[in-house]
């Protein structure tokens, strides 16, 4: 069973999701793994470049490229709204402002 109930500070109940906790644990694990990885790279980075320069440069290039895709994806919604759904400019002559004057049977003068 995935869903249990946990009491919140305010006294209400919220859904306790096993998947959510698992996700958070994984994030923490990868956070530590990431720090460990950086430490290793710092320790062995110089040796790595000398030992396997092509693989080393390739790895950095691929990582940078993949992260750039992720960053580009984050701007997707803005690009979609801004360039696709924005009202298209009308090419013909339209006034910048319009005024609606209601009028019925009044003296034109």
């Amino acid at each position, binding site marked *: 069973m995935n869903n249990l109930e946990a009491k919140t500070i305010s006294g209400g109940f919220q859904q306790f999701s096993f998947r959510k906790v698992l996700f958070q644990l994984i994030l923490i694990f990868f956070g530590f793994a990431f720090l460990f*990885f950086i430490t290793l790279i710092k320790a062995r980075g110089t040796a790595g470049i000398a030992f396997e320069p092509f693989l080393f440069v390739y*790895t950095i290039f*691929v990582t940078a*490229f*993949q992260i750039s895709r992720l960053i580009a994806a984050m701007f997707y919604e803005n*690009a979609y709204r801004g*360039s696709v759904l924005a009202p298209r400019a009308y090419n013909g002559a339209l006034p910048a402002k319009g005024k609606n004057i209601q009028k019925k049977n009044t003296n034109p003068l």
Partner: protein
Amino acid sequence: MSFIVPCKNEEKVIANTISNCFQAEYPKEKIEVIAVNDGSTDRSGEIMKSMAQKHKNLTVIDWENNRGKKHAMAEGFRRARGEIVVQLDSDSFIDPATFRKIVEPFQNPKIGAVSAHTDPKNADRNFLTKMQAAYYFMSFRVLKAAESTFLTVFCCSGCASAYRKSIVLPVLDEWLEESFLGHPVPWGDDRALTSRILKAGYRTIYSNKVKAETIVPENLRQLAKQQIRWKKSWLVNAVYNARFIWKSHPFVAFTYFFPLVGVTYLSPIMAGRALFYLPIVKGVFPYYHVIGILLLAALFIAYYRFVAPENKYWIYFFPWALFNLFILSFLTIYALMRINDRGWGTR
């Protein structure tokens, strides 16, 4: 608005696919469906004809002999009365409630094609389909979305995409006659068509607001065949795109397309070096390489969870990343070696 549904031997799903088109939340009198029976040997043609009696806006084109999906699509484009043409695979479905969203971007006259967001319909079937669910989500919501940020999606998916007919018709013959190393190219019709639209100077985008579903391979053999076909089409198409993309979309070419080509071609070589050459010859095990790939996967998953907290397949992106490293990356070499085998190799 016209739907084109090319079909070969899909008797189990074709009725649902056609019905799904007519359920779209769009004025019914403006919906036209063109279903092409491309030489089916099962009851697909019969089912399509019986459906034509129920739906007056359904046109069935019945071919006795198989001519290929490209020809079926081309026939649909020629006969379509609508300016916006939605191409649907015979095993794909668009959520009727989100359908209108695929038309919306065409307000911009520079938009030539729109790709819908597609998820596997049979995701819960087994471990492989769950991995594909994570991969599909990432592929659309991250990779296609990233391309769409530059309004240059390189492949408007054949599962469910919409095209502006007046842009497609002038490039239809060139697309049909596509060849590579002197032989016709039967696969990658969606990628090739998208390329022609980009070459004509139009923009292609992805819409996460249009939800579609498709049936994905349920066993390793089917998946391998599909991946080899996709990789072949990618290789052929990359050569085609490389000729014009630097002229028509220079920024995208140098920041996205050329790095992508480099990474894809080098990945099997580097994977082979890290996984086999270095451990065997130099006794260095690829801990960093594998951990690095998992960390990168974790970064993508964090974004995945952020944009789709309700999607339950995120965890399967880890095994997919390893599957990609150990198996799929090497299929690129196989696909390159078998590039002259023009068989379809479908399920």
